[in-house]
């Protein structure tokens, strides 16, 4: 029988109650607490991920990260929930109400600082949406067929925005 250089091993039917010492060296010590990453770094990373990845995944990793997502309006300056931006399988399968809520939640969090929006939106919601965007909004890209938007809504909008 050959003996390995690893000193600790289980033999035959012997039971070893405590984990062998070799195990502890195999598992890397959890030295760094990524949940405690400074919030400005988390924000920087989240800005690179974009709103959908943050809402669906990243902010659910731990509470300190979610706090950043909730408390940093700058994260929601650009809100785009257009399926063409995502190849995410879950996005394709998600129901309309979910998508609708996504931008509502995102705009709530933007606290009036949203500068660019892209996504689908009902006529009824359009003014509501525009009202919640920043007065300095540069881009409002809607997926809805423009002909479905009522004339009154259009005239109200035109004073404020250029639809792209």
């Amino acid at each position, binding site marked *: 029988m050959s003996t390995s250089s690893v000193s600790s091993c289980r033999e035959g039917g012997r039971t070893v109650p405590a984990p062998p010492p070799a195990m502890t060296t195999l598992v890397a010590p959890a030295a760094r607490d*990524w949940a405690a990453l400074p919030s400005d770094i988390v924000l920087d990373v989240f800005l690179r991920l974009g709103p959908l990845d943050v809402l669906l995944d990243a902010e659910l990793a731990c509470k300190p990260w979610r706090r950043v997502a909730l408390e940093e309006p700058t994260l929601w300056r650009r809100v785009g929930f257009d399926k063409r931006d995502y190849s995410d399988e879950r996005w394709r399968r998600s129901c309309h109400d979910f998508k609708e809520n996504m931008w509502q939640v995102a705009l709530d969090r933007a606290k009036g600082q949203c500068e660019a929006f892209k996504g689908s939106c009902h006529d009824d919601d359009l003014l509501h949406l525009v009202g919640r965007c920043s007065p300095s909004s540069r881009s409002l890209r809607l997926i809805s067929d423009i002909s479905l938007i009522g004339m009154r809504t259009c005239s109200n909008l035109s004073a404020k925005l250029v639809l792209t």
Partner: protein
Amino acid sequence: MEVDKGKGEAEETRKVAEADRDTVTLKSSDGKLFEVSKEAAARLSTVLAGMIAGGSIDDNGTDLKQIGSEALENVVDYCNKHANSIPSAALISSSISFNTAPFKEPEEWERKFVDRLSHDALFDLVEAANFLGMERLLDVTCHKISEMMKGKSPDQIREVFNIKNDYTKEELEEIRQELAWAFYDD
């Protein structure tokens, strides 16, 4: 004393440093000393630029008590590599997604620089970059961290970053209800 300029060897650099003082000496929390190009340090770190301009650089090693030797070595290595690299023309990325503001894409050598780091080393480096006000290094490290998260589920993200799940099942359910989380095939 004759000093052979133009060679990048460590010993030579040290001699040149002593003669010309074109480097600064930084001291890590565990007392190790590192030489870094003064020009690169001032250009890449707002904090070091302020210290150099304000004359608070110690020739015997400026104390950086918040930064360990491994992270400081990476910072110094990054600064020195940066000093020798020729910046490419197109640094600003063409934003692929509507959602993300245009960021400066890392250069090839910068990608390789962070790719070789362990997760712990990356964590320490991003904190050091933050502490020293190194915008470019923050770009590179945050880009790497975002790549590590992209397309991963909360569970997978926790696994990659060794994060303990501090949510209860009820709390997660509540958050998902806020989003009216529902899929057609649920």
